[in-house]
């Protein structure tokens, strides 16, 4: 599934360095978190979780619920993406605000929001509804940003002459959207949807199994099923659960994503007939089916035509040069924005001042320990993915049978397997620590592996031949060709991987398993504990500290490495 990830990887604007805009965005997040924490003060002290049945007959029901949550979040993401990207791409002023915002949101560890969102929603809504909503919001935050970036990037890279053509022929906005903008973005949107769904499972499972102290936020679904099964040590149920999860993911891949990808291939911009266009059996079957053909000509086509004509008539073509928004409105908006930010920022600061010095020290140590764990997980992942990835990438024969295997394995969200992992390591010395690192590893290694495979596969044949002709030794070949060629891909993978690892820390460092609390120090366990005990100032401080740390790491470390890799090692 993530085969061509590198192709449509939305590149965040990596050339930007930290600016005042980043600071504003971080303050904005602080205000948002503060508002959440304020709401959370009214959160019930104990929340009863759902009864999870381990009967295999319950599995389809749970699978359906999980899928529905994903679908709801995905639709929400699309709804957010289209106007946001449009505004950012078409309005210069909006771009200056929206783009940095998106950029920071992309590098924020999303799971760190989960406790605040859960607590604040349970304070104002009925418990079950609140938890459902929190899960959907969480998945939304994991799916939306890269889709939005893809859409924004597509909009801003539409070739000048196509834009001019649609202007010269006076396309009404609706026509421009349907014949130019959406088709141009289609391929990238579909690819990013695939990625969003893959990432979404990770967060869905995390949300479904979240459980701290008296507060059981679990949701009936595949994740909770697996957790319950592991908790009871029921091997049969574990097998059923994993099987159901894999089946759901494979079915979605075969029945939804592959057909969509094959269909979207027609929107390639290339003016050359491509070889090896993707195909999907399900799409072929759909195209051949009479029922589908009938539905298209009798139902779908006319309805679409009607809607199209109606919308076309609603939006007349522009006849005049664009008007600009009056400056008064802009200033008004800016004033309201800064007022909210200023007031909220002050209140958040006041709450943060209530955090004792000792707690700040604990936060600092926690950050350091988690950073160490992330580092270890990355190092272990690199150690095995680089040799294997290069081997797969440079040997089509090996790739042919390893790749599908790896893809299936990788498609199972690491968070779903976490309870099972706990079952395995719970009795080992340093079990919690080991489990945390292992979960980080499981969640991150695939990003690295797929990127390295892609990088190795992209090494031009002539360079490989040249190094063979020069009779370079194995070491020299690695040093002068393979490592530099793979490096940009490796960095891209590592950035995503480290983001994933930080996310994993929220559920990895403190878990409740079979009535027993497995905990190891770290920022993740600190946040989880603050959630369990209702220590709201600490919750705000720790969450904010984690966000700032990860954003800074991205800005100051990863971005530099990335730029270096792109400048020096990218094979064009």
């Amino acid at each position, binding site marked *: 599934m993530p085969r061509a990830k590198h192709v449509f990887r939305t590149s965040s604007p990596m050339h930007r360095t930290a600016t005042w805009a980043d600071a504003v965005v971080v303050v904005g997040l602080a205000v948002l978190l503060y508002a959440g924490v304020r709401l959370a003060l009214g959160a019930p002290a104990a929340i009863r979780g759902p009864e999870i049945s381990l009967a295999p007959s319950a599995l389809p029901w749970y699978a359906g619920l999980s899928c529905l949550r994903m679908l709801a979040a995905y639709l929400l993401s699309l709804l957010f993406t289209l106007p946001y990207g449009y505004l950012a791409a078409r309005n210069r002023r909006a771009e200056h605000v929206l783009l940095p915002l998106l950029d920071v949101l992309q590098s924020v560890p999303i799971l760190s929001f989960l406790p605040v969102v859960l607590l604040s929603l349970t304070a104002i809504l009925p418990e079950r509804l609140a938890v459902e909503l929190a899960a959907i919001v969480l998945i939304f935050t994991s799916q939306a940003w890269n889709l939005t970036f893809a859409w924004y990037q597509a909009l801003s890279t539409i070739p000048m002459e196509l834009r001019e053509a649609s202007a010269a022929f*006076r396309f009404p906005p609706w026509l421009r959207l349907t014949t130019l903008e959406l088709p141009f973005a289609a391929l990238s949107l579909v690819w990013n949807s695939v990625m969003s769904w893959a990432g979404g499972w990770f967060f869905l499972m995390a949300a479904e199994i979240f459980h701290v102290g008296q507060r059981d936020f679990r949701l009936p679904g595949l994740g909770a099923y697996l957790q319950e099964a592991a908790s009871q040590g029921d091997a049969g149920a574990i097998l059923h659960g994993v099987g159901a999860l894999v089946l759901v993911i494979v079915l979605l891949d075969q029945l939804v994503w592959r057909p969509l990808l094959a269909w979207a291939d027609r929107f390639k911009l290339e003016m050359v007939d491509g070889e090896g266009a993707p195909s999907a059996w399900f799409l072929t079957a759909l195209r051949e089916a009479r029922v589908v053909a009938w539905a298209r000509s009798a139902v779908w086509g006319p309805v679409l035509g009607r809607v199209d004509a109606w919308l076309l008539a609603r939006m007349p073509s522009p006849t005049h040069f664009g008007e600009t928004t009056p400056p008064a409105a802009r200033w008004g908006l800016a004033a309201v924005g800064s007022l909210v930010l200023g007031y909220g920022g002050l209140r958040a600061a006041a709450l943060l001042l209530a955090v004792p010095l000792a707690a700040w020290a604990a936060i600092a140590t926690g950050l350091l320990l988690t950073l160490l764990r992330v580092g270890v997980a990355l190092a272990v992942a690199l150690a095995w993915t680089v040799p294997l990835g290069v081997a797969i990438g440079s040997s089509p024969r090996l790739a042919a049978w390893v790749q599908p295997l790896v893809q299936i394995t990788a498609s199972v969200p690491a968070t779903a397997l976490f309870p099972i992992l706990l079952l395995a390591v719970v009795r080992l010395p340093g079990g919690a620590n080991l489990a945390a690192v292992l979960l980080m590893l499981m969640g991150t290694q695939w990003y690295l592996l797929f990127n390295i495979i892609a990088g190795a596969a992209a090494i031009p044949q002539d360079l490989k031949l040249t190094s063979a002709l020069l009779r370079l030794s194995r070491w020299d070949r690695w040093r002068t060709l393979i490592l530099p060629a793979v490096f940009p891909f490796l960095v891209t993978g590592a950035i995503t991987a480290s983001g994933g690892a930080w996310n994993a820390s929220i559920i990895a460092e403190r878990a409740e398993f079979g009535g027993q609390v497995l905990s190891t120090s770290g920022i993740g366990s600190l946040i989880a504990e603050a959630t369990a005990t209702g220590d709201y100032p600490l919750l705000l401080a720790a969450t904010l500290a984690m966000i700032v740390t990860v954003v800074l790491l991205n800005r100051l470390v990863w971005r530099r490495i990335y730029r270096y890799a792109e400048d020096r090692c990218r094979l064009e």
Partner: protein
Amino acid sequence: MATNGELVTLERVGQVYASGERPFFAIQDVTLALREGEFVTLVGPSGCGKSTLLRIITGLQRPSEGRVLYRGEPLRGINPHATIVFQTFALFPWLTVLGNVDIALKARGLPPTLRTARALDLLDRVGLDGFEGAYPRELSGGMRQKVGFARAMAVDPELLCLDEPFSALDVLSAEALRGELLELWTTGKIPTRAILMVTHNIEEAVFMADRIVVMQKDPGRVVTELQVNLPHPRQRKAPAFLEMVDKVYATLAGQTQPEHIEMGSAPGEPGQKRPLPHTTITALAGLLEHVATRPGDRADLYRIAEELGVGSDHLLGLTEAAELLGFATVTGGDIALTPLGETFAEASILARKEICATRIRRLPLFRWLLAMLQATHEKRLERDVAHTALELDFPAEVAARQLETLINWGRYAELLAYDDTRDVFYLEPAGAATAGHGGTAVKEE
């Protein structure tokens, strides 16, 4: 309002880009009229704003100064009576040939039944019947451009604007398409009242147009208009035709000016600035060698364009560089090598580098850059610093191109080194050594 058959009237139109503190004119003070029944071409070196002018006339771009009138009425927004054929076709790759024509009609709000019949008729007229269902990627360049023409015709334009429509085609397709367009135009088979074509191919302009508007750059402006009174079909080898081509070349290539005017002034100094032509010394050497093979070391510019198969755009840039470095002079559309140019053409590579170095060092831009490098402590200069300084005199993208040319020429002449990974200019040999790869050897001033 009386318009005297004037379709388009430009009154003192200008396009200013504010970059930093100083405004730059992409186009300045252009006054021009397009009358019914005319085929007008815009020619000029790259950067003279001919495409910008075309976009202003179609309403794709709003001029920052002056007025655009269409049939006496001021133009606000896209001109509904004009349409464009693009250099790169601008077809929607996901629509079929039919779909690409249909979409223009759909935008005009025609009902589907009418659209299909009309689109098929148009495709028929340009000779694409049978290809309705094909996708653009399945067609050759010439056929794609035919779709472009059919789509433009679909909206019954009074004014047909062509933006270098033949320059992305192979020679044979371009020639065929030119003939077909001329036939449609001269026989009145299309309702078009006037055609405005931008081209960098001077021969093409003389071949097709009734009037040639010649533009110059820095700032973009109209320098002259030439009436072409040759009957169609025009014979390319006819003396009158060649004379016309020569005349356009003579206007465009101008006359070699006294040195101080030719070179312009250095950044930060008063006086007219002259950007370096964006060419490489290697290409310049090729031109000089070619001219050296001609009797008397002189040649007609339009002949060279034909012989070398280079566009007039590129050729004009090369002659400008040759004049600037004192290798050649241009008079009346002819280029002649100076004794220095002859020496250069015959010299070995090392000798060429020597000659180049002595000549380049005299250019104000190089004098300025080398002086800045000398003045710095470590004989090195960040690209950004140089770029910022240049941006005071040139628009941002021109400044970037100036730096590229400076790097190319400076490296060739071994006057300076440039480290691409750190974006730094170097002067000292020691600096070049630490620069590692990316820098060439350096010679002290």
